[in-house]
């Protein structure tokens, strides 16, 4: 359970991360908006509550591993890592620029603290399964956890289900996957493009322990990762229902915002909305 104090602190951090996402994207002039904003709460809980990592000693062998399968939402990963202390927040504005450590899709050759390079969809879960199998071979299960973040759109990829079967077969209790169930992909709504429902049943059928949560409720996110710790015979799948573009009303629930950045005037509007918490407070930055 999060204390109220901790929950409020996480919510503030998530808001800061959302502001940075808008600033990064407008500076880059390209990139994805909806997914990163939608996953800001999950990434915040992971980096500021759940994961056992040390930004100053990022090679610590016993650290928890975070695999971002849908690499295109990397602005939220980069922002969370910067706020957690992996690199200076000022570096965020180099996103997608020549020579930047923050490549358009994550590349660990440029930023070694990343666990994987990713972009092509559907292969992150396989890599996380491999990490979990190796972890168990070393008898280190329980010491470190493997967390894999995925999009719902990438569940169209057949490889995802190859990995799902193997994880179920192996009963990988050190593995937790989270699907960003925001219902959108590039061409439209997931249920129009390629229906995924009944999604929870699919994962249960492959012997996963399945949880469904509100992906914007800090308490629920933290509790889901805690619950996974107590599941001993199965990998855990957290289906996190999120609102794409969350935090900026004009961007929310619109698949048009999947793969484009805000223009400068749209960014100004978005930042004002985030800084005033949707008009609830007077912004101190104005």
């Amino acid at each position, binding site marked *: 359970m999060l204390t109220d104090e901790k929950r409020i602190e996480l919510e503030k951090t998530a808001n800061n991360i959302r502001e940075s996402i808008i600033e990064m994207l407008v500076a880059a002039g390209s990139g994805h908006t909806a997914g990163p904003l939608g996953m800001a709460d999950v990434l915040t809980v992971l980096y500021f509550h759940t994961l056992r990592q040390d930004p100053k000693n990022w090679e610590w062998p016993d650290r928890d*591993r975070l*695999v971002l399968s849908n690499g295109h939402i990397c602005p939220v990963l980069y922002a969370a890592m910067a706020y957690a202390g992996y690199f200076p927040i000022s570096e965020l504005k180099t996103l997608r620029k020549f020579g930047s450590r923050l490549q358009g899709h994550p*590349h*660990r*050759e440029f930023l070694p603290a990343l*666990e*994987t*390079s*990713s*972009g*092509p969809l559907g*292969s992150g879960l*396989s*890599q*996380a*399964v*491999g*990490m*979990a*199998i*190796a*972890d168990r*071979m*070393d008898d280190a299960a329980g010491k470190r956890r493997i967390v894999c973040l995925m999009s719902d759109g990438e569940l169209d990829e*057949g*490889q995802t289900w*190859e*990995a799902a*079967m*193997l994880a179920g077969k192996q009963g990988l209790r050190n593995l937790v996957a989270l699907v960003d169930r925001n219902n959108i992909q590039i061409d439209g709504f997931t249920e129009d493009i390629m229906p995924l429902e009944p999604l929870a049943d699919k994962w249960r059928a492959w012997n996963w322990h399945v949880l469904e949560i509100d992906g914007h409720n800090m308490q629920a996110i933290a509790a889901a990762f805690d619950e996974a710790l107590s599941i001993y015979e199965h990998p855990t799948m957290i289906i996190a229902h999120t609102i794409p573009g969350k935090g900026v009303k004009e961007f929310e629930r619109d698949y048009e915002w999947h793969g484009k950045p805000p223009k400068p005037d749209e960014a100004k509007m978005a930042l004002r909305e985030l800084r005033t918490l949707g008009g609830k407070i007077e912004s101190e930055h104005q």
Partner: protein
Amino acid sequence: MLNPELRLNPKLFDADVEKTAIRAGFGQGLVEAGTQNANVVVLCGDLTESAHALEFKEKFPDRFVELGVAEQNMASVASGMAAMGKIPFITSYAMFSPGRNWEQIRTTIAYNDRHVKIGGSHAGVSVGPDGGTHQATEDIALTRVIPRMIVICPCDATEACKATVASVSTETPVYLRLARNDTPIMTTPDTPFAIGKSQRVWISEKPRVGIIACGALLYEALLAARALEAEHIDCEVLNLSTIKPIDEEAIVKLARATGRLVTVEEHQIFAGMGSAVAECVVKHSPVPMEFVGVHDRFGQSGTPEQLIEHYCMGHDSIAKAVHTVLRR
């Protein structure tokens, strides 16, 4: 004559020369590698016996993972295991790995800089009766174009074993191209082997043509060189088992000494070993070349011997290519 420095099989040209499948040498190499290094793990996709992962599985059951018929998953799972310090070998048929899972190998292994070793069995038309779907003739092209990837096509089971063991100590992904069929043992445990180093298997005082071969067809190249010697056409035969990184020095030296080259591979002539040699020769010392290999066609069912003959890759075809290049 056969190069005495290489301590080759003395019975190489005997009618009863020992024959073993190159993939079996890989299986033996896996066990040796696993014995030497506790981090070596083997992954298999429902082809454990055929891809020769069985010996490893029996000796190290806790370091063996069966993934079912799922080669794309296998490549990326191996990447994840490598991220945790393991040295994974993925085993299947070349048509499926690196065939079907090429993008996973490219992105999750090579781009990700994970040192996974890929054993692709059943390469070439000599797979035989299974037919064209199972005969990989494009895999050298697919792998050598990937940055960081080492590509090795051993000539026999003995060399395959050494290449498998040697691949463990490379800090890079490696593709080991293996064949299904029993083929002559040309090298011995005493024959030197190093990744990236070719071998002058057949030498002559004043060679007029250089024959560069990889895989089991090296034997056909030797038969051709011996027959040509009787016709007073002296050749040198190079075993280019490492296709990438290519042994530039040896190839350029051979091109300069002979002025004419013939390449021999059980692979499409486009973008394979012969093309790699041509890239090297054109840059440093252009000479006329002939390419023995599969000429832009798919394979089919038949005995290995029939297919090698049909696709013009046997010793007669190699000798013919030597005559052709001499006329140019």
